[in-house]
């Protein structure tokens, strides 16, 4: 509760709204005690005095009545009527909602049908019909406004009640033979009460505005008594000659409604944890780059060379070092496997290369990634965009979430081509069908017109692959492309990727958690743990003789190469949270060879020939084996 209040106070606008509102309410409460002139006494000699006239701070209206006094009394009336309408609507609506939600079945059905019918009206029509039946008057306007808001409460409260009515404690009470009404009173009501209060506070502004509106139309409060709405309505005929009589009540309504809105927004933000964590921010077109220094470009003839890459996530005050000085290289036509558990930073590494890490919260804080000698990390967005999907393509993990749900797959494929090449619609469509053929989708012609939800998981992943192939790229980064699929489909997709790679001489970076897949596809492998590379080398050598204890465990998880889906649950313990890494070896808490030395100081990635390992007590002495495997 105190945290909640704190959040509201910290939100300056909400606090301002709250203060304005509080002032208005206090003024309305003390109005009878203030030395004001009587609000309804007319004085035709003093008609339409301007503001600051002697004796009348805000002037007088068309009958010479003191505006300040009428304003305060009117505010008092408007607030009271709005509040009363909110209470009445809340009580009746909640009662209906609780009964419907608690008893369910036919009762619920009949009641909610009725509520839906009421909601089919534009609210004012219903209110006008009620006032027409009851006759104009403030009480009747109040009843009308309360009545049109009952369905809103009924529907909200019903939803909450249905949830509670199925909970164990209600079942228990029923079994204990408690009567329905006692259960509602003792078990249900206390639980829905907070919701009722919140719903009431969010609608009270509406109620004030609606009753003021009816009064403005002459259907609410009747002369000589005036609420803010009827003050405005009466002043309307003198709008042009004496605008101040309109402005005074109008501004007061504006203040009240704005105060309520500001406060309401603050309350909503404070209650909605998604907004609080700042999660509802949009990722930018490319990941933010904030590098303090840029390392030298790597030498050698690699197609893609990642060097000392660092990517962090800033969430609140915590900083997650998702990628911590990672270096990788891929030669033309080569397949590099990047393997690790979820949270090891392997996907973030891959996404960082093309600036696709969501930002905020992600920031690339160091390192570089050279593609044919150009640093992708430091590249301006316009140049980077032209490489994306054209020279370097992605295959994402979950094809249902990663394909646009509302566009036909053929159009999505065609778009991949047209954003990079000036080809006509028909040609792009024809290319799309060809691509679907290439990834062995039967009936490609008709499948191109399908929406993603109409395809099977395996088909969708084939579409994802086709999209990556669209512009014949040099490199494909495949981010766990088979994890969401079942075993047989997985094998088909892997075979397809392997064929395509060989046929086209593609370089592939294959992100996975499965050593079986790596063994099947990859020439070399880099093993990642807690944001760092802990071992790398040719696949055969690493598989035959893993040097890092973690690698050995990963391999041990694979029962037989190339078969079935495997999870890494068999390694005891969990990877450490990367915002709070232990000093020394990050794997130490889970390593059965860990010594005191492991927990002290930085352990370097120690290269020997084609292999390298980051461990003080490796399983294999690489220098003895010569690193050739």
């Amino acid at each position, binding site marked *: 509760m105190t945290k909640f209040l704190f959040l509201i106070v910290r939100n300056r606008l909400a606090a301002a709204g709250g203060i304005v509102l509080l002032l208005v309410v206090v003024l309305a409460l003390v109005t009878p005690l203030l030395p004001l002139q009587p609000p309804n006494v007319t004085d035709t000699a003093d008609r339409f005095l301007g503001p600051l006239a002697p004796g009348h701070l805000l002037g007088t209206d068309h009958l010479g009545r003191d505006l300040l006094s009428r304003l305060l009394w009117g505010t008092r009336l408007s607030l009271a009527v709005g509040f009363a309408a909110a209470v009445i609507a809340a009580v009746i609506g909640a009662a209906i909602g609780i009964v419907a939600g608690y008893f369910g079945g036919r009762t619920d059905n009949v009641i909610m*049908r*009725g509520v*839906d*019918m009421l909601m*089919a*009206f*534009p*609210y*004012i*029509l*219903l209110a*006008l*019909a*009620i*006032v*027409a*039946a009851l*006759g*104009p008057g403030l009480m009747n306007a109040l009843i009308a406004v309360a009545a049109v808001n009952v369905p809103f409460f009924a529907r909200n409260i019903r939803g909450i009640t249905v949830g509670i009515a199925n909970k164990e404690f209600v079942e228990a009470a029923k079994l204990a033979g408690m009567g329905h009404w006692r259960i509602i009173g003792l078990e249900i009501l206390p639980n829905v009460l907070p919701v009722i209060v919140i719903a009431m506070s969010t609608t009270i502004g509406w109620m004030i*505005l609606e009753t003021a*509106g009816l009064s*403005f*139309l*002459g*259907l609410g409060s009747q002369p000589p008594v005036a609420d803010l709405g009827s003050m*405005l309505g009466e002043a*309307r005929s003198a709008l*042009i000659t004496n605008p101040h009589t*309109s*402005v005074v009540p*109008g501004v007061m*309504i*504006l203040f009240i*409604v*704005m105060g309520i*809105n500001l406060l309401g927004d603050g309350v909503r933000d404070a209650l909605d944890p998604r907004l609080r964590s700042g999660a*509802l*921010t*949009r*990722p930018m*077109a490319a990941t933010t780059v904030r590098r303090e220094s840029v390392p030298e470009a790597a030498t050698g003839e690699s197609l893609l060379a990642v060097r000392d890459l660092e990517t962090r996530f800033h969430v609140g005050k915590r900083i997650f070092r998702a990628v911590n000085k990672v270096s990788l290289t891929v030669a033309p036509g080569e397949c590099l496997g990047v393997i690790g558990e979820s949270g090891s930073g392997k996907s973030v590494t891959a996404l960082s290369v*093309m600036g*696709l890490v969501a930002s905020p919260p992600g920031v690339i804080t160091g390192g570089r990634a050279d593609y044919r000698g150009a640093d992708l990390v430091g590249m301006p967005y316009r140049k980077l*965009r*032209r490489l*994306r*999907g054209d020279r370097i*393509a*992605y295959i994402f993990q979950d094809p249902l*979430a*990663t*394909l*646009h*749900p*509302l566009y036909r797959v053929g159009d999505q494929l065609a*778009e991949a081509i047209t*954003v*990079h090449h000036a080809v006509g619609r028909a040609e792009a469509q024809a290319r799309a069908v060809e691509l679907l053929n290439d990834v062995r989708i039967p009936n490609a012609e008709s499948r191109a017109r399908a*929406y993603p939800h109409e395809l099977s998981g395996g088909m969708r992943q084939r579409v994802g692959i086709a999209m990556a192939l*669209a512009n014949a790229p040099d490199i494909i980064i495949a981010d766990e492309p088979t994890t969401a699929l079942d075993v047989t489909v997985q094998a088909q997709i892997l075979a397809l990727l392997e064929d395509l790679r060989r046929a086209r001489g593609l370089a592939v970076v294959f992100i996975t958690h499965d050593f079986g897949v790596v063994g099947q596809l990859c020439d070399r492998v880099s093993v990642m743990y807690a944001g760092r590379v802990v071992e790398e080398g040719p696949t055969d050598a690493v598989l035959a003789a893993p040097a890092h204890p973690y690698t050995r465990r990963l391999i041990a998880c694979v029962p037989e190469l190339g078969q079935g889906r495997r999870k890494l649950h068999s390694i005891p313990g969990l990877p450490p949270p990367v915002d709070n890494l232990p000093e020394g070896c990050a794997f130490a808490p889970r390593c059965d060879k860990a010594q005191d030395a492991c927990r002290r100081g930085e352990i370097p990635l120690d290269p020997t020939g084609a292999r390298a390992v980051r461990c003080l007590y490796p399983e294999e002495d690489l220098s003895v084996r010569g690193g050739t495997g």
Partner: protein
Amino acid sequence: MGGYIAKRLLSAIPVLMGITVIVFSIMALIPGDPATAILGSYATPENVAELNRDLGLDRPAPVRYFIWLGNMLQGDFGRSFSLNRPVIDEVLDRFSATLVLAGTSFVLCALLGILAGVVSAARQYGLADKAITFAVLLGISIPSFFLGMMMILFFAVRLQWLPVSGMYAIYGGGGLVDLLRHLAMPAIALSVVATGVIARLSRSAMLEVLRQDFIRTARAKGVGERRVIWRHALRAAMVSIIPVLGIQAGFVLSGAVYIEIVFQWPGVGRMLVDAILTRDILLVQGGVVFVAACYVMFNIAVDVAQSLLDPRIRT
């Protein structure tokens, strides 16, 4: 697609029936004797009894309801005693004026609201976003009738750009330009609140969508940022924006009542208020049923638009 529309139209029948039942029940609450109200206090008891028989008021309520419903289905909404003309004629005349006003406002608030919301989301926390957020806050807080009055003071009285009120100039008016000049202020005043609400919702819908995986896919394909926002993201966000447009249309229609009073617009809202003040019950009843039925139909159109947009709900 045709099947879906037919299904939605069929489902509207019980709703329309419900609307007539509700209106009829509310009107049955009326204290006193409608015949006396119509004839005034000079009527003799014989006159009253005769009128009651003419109006069918001496029969039980369910019978009266079905007679009323049957007549309405044949286009007979009864006769307005205060205007001495068929209710349906008056309602149709007035409703067309309201349609011009509310329709324009609705188009305005939908276009401006979505535009503002998208820009706001695309420039989240930027200057444009802050300016829009502030304008939206102001917009949703100002009562439309007060805003209308202030606009009259400023644009019609002070600057003399636009006519104070009415739908056409009394002398020499009547053309489209004349209509637009009269329409500008009321249409804008009416659209402000809804624009704010739609802008707000569009902003959060866009922020929600922009975090989705398929947006990242579009970027990975090399799609430019403008296209990502206006095509990929907006299309997906429309799925949650369209239902709100339907709801806001109801609010625009409701707000039209105030605006029609402020600007002396000869619409159905002003007609209803006048009818209530003169206790012309048949006119109120007919007007409310007619407008509510139109609103139900409009909402079906919204649902159909939604299904056109989202292939997943098309059945």
